[in-house]
């Protein structure tokens, strides 16, 4: 009797061998993911509402990040030529001016040096403004000579170093670095980017909680099934699986909808932004989400969905024990 029983047990274990286990495992994954999808479709309206919340939560950071990316392109276009204007002391001899500008021309950190003599300045003033009558009041040319420098660097710190060096020259009365607005823009961009990360973090948390709560309700509604499954020998992983797939589908579909929303929003603002940009510089094009960014959005949505489900499952499945 004992021998027969042992033999029987051995046969049972043999029947569910490794190959069979792998096959049954992948079969179970396939079946469970399909069922989770089907459950989503059974209550289309409720699922759609949840998905809409997820989509908005994911689309907002996606939209903001791509808007910032486009702004970056804008500042890259504008930042091309920071320059330093050297206003020289009145009364410096013209030969000395020539000599100074030639010396500056030899420096590696300056791309170009342009000397504007007081006479040339006066000519330009006459040509470009309507205030030439004003000059009648002066006995002699009141304009100083100006040297306009184009540094080869665009780094604010280095620009400032050059500016200070120039200001120290005896012939220079004032060296003005025309970059205040570049700094402001850079500061604004840094702030906006930090804000986008904070918002992105908060909205990711929203996705996590929304999926977690939805999955928690699914768990509650399938309490009996969980109990019976555990009684007939379901492992924790087996019980968990359908809910993790639910979360995964929510995350994935939420991200797909978010992608559509973000692309739509970018397309909607593209035309007016381009019209506006054309007034200032050429060649500005609003870029939508690229392939890598789209994949990132999908991956983030998927992981957040899975994570939210994992939180709910970890929190609630242990509570449902037969007994």
């Amino acid at each position, binding site marked *: 009797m004992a021998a027969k029983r042992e033999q029987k047990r051995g046969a049972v274990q043999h029947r569910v061998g490794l190959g069979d286990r792998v096959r*049954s495992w992948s079969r*179970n994954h396939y079946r469970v993911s399909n069922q989770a999808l089907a459950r989503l479709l059974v209550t289309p309206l409720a699922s759609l509402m949840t998905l809409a919340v997820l989509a908005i939560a994911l689309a907002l950071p996606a939209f903001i990040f791509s808007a910032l990316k486009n702004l970056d392109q804008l500042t890259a276009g504008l930042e091309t030529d920071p320059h330093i204007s050297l206003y020289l002391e009145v009364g410096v001899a013209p030969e000395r001016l020539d000599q100074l500008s030639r010396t500056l021309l030899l420096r590696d950190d300056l791309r170009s040096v342009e000397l504007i003599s007081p006479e040339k300045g006066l000519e330009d003033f006459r040509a470009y403004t309507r205030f030439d009558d004003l000059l009648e009041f002066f006995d002699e040319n009141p304009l100083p000579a100006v040297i306009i420098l184009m540094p080869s660097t665009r780094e604010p710190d280095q620009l400032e170093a050059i500016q200070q060096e120039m200001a120290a020259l005896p012939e220079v009365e004032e060296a003005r670095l025309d970059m205040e607005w570049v700094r402001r823009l850079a500061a604004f961009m840094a702030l906006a980017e930090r804000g986008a990360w904070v918002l992105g973090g908060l909205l990711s948390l929203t996705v996590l909680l929304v999926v977690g709560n939805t999955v928690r309700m699914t768990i509650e509604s399938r309490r009996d099934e969980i109990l019976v499954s555990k009684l007939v*020998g379901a492992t924790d992983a087996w019980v968990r699986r359908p809910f993790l797939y639910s979360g995964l589908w929510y995350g994935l579909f939420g991200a797909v909808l978010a992608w559509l929303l973000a692309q739509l929003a970018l397309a909607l603002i593209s035309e007016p932004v381009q019209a506006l940009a054309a007034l200032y510089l050429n060649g500005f094009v609003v870029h939508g989400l690229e392939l890598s960014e789209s994949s990132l959005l999908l991956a983030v949505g998927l992981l957040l969905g899975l994570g939210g489900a994992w939180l709910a499952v970890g929190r609630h499945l242990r509570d449902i024990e*037969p007994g």
Partner: protein
Amino acid sequence: MTAIRFSNVGKRYPNGHDALKGLNFDLDSGELAFLTGHSGAGKSTLLKLIMLMERPSRGEVWVGEQDLARLPRKQIPYHRRHIGVVFQNHQLLFDRSVFDNVALPLQISGYDPVDAARRVRAALDKVGLLSREKLNPVTLSSGEQQRVGIARAIVHKPKLLLADEPTGNLDPALSEDIMHLFEQFNRIGTTVLIASHDLSLINRLHHRVLVLKDGRLVSDGG
């Protein structure tokens, strides 16, 4: 060989109630025994200890060669796969067909679907419900529902079959049918332990009877 061994088992619930006290008995492989006693005597607790739905406060419970105290939580599902259980309220799932209810343990254990379908039909045939496989169990009578529950308990050919008041809601004729079904499984080698308070039925069947009273075993015999 021993199928179940209780050695000085006590179970005290957190509220201080002693459900079982100093319980000793062996159930041999291939045996059929009834477990009886007034309600609250500890019958369900005893079955729960075998299923590891509860852990004893004292003593040892062995199932086959396994000391259940040494079984880690992760192994509990595999332990349960060796046992078939029939419940009083049959615990059927009404969101799926009779067939799918019976197939659940096989899906969980990872049987090949073709093999599983064959076994499900064999189990349904044994309880006389083969023609009902596509129905939702909610449309069946309570006697039929109970037999679906039995089919689910035996579909994976467990060595040990437990039943908690399997005839609780059934009329005497149906109850006797159900008990005869258990006797059939016992005849092909399954160890069977049935908790029931239907004394007149138990006495007619002439099997070993364990009587619990206030958590103690007060009688053990035929």
